[in-house]
């Protein structure tokens, strides 16, 4: 069966420090991968979307970047964190079967607090 791992669960980082959040998927190949951010009391904002290795689209201009060094690994990074980067970050994956989009599966999230 497929599983998704996202870590760390919580993170407190000072302003100006770097960030690296990692997400890995097991049990499937060539998944679509997503990074979302959820600010307190708000909906989910799509940050990055990837359909394959090295294929990443950025949805909003921001202080963050994403990389997909392997088929089932998706990394969210920042060189210098801002206070506004605080939030709940979610990784997700989905697949296409028979031309239809399947449901997405989400990691447990990372609560990032920038201080």
């Amino acid at each position: 069966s497929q599983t998704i791992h996202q870590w760390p669960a919580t993170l407190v980082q000072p302003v100006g420090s770097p960030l690296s959040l990692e997400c890995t998927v097991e049990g499937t190949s060539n998944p679509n991968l997503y990074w979302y951010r959820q600010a307190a009391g708000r909906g989910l904002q799509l940050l990055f979307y990837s359909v394959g290795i090295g294929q990443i689209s950025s949805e909003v201009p921001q202080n963050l970047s994403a990389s997909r060094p392997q088929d089932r690994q998706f990394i969210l990074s920042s060189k210098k964190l801002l206070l506004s980067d605080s939030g709940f970050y979610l990784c997700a994956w989905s697949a296409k079967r028979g031309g239809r989009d399947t449901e997405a599966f989400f990691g447990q999230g990372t609560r990032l607090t920038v201080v």
Partner: protein
Amino acid sequence: AQSVTQLDSHVSVSEGTPVLLRCNYSSSYSPSLFWYVQHPNKGLQLLLKYTSAATLVKGINGFEAEFKKSETSFHLTKPSAHMSDAAEYFCVTYNQGGKLIFGQGTELSVKP
């Protein structure tokens, strides 16, 4: 363009009474539609999905949703609310580029 709109940002019900969370969609073709639930500080869990098969979809925890093309709706219902149903609920679809599109979310409160 494909999109979903959740009509209520907050719904409050009493335990044991019915739940109705409303979602309208906009799509130029038959969409895939999903409902997810999120408990505080947790990831999202799939409740149910519509992918052009039966229009009445049954999900986990007693939830169901009906796809109504004439009304472009995919409302989530449950006959009897339980305290554990209190959470944030999201209606979700895909756009033509294959990206997940989320509704704004509905917070469900359940009063004892």
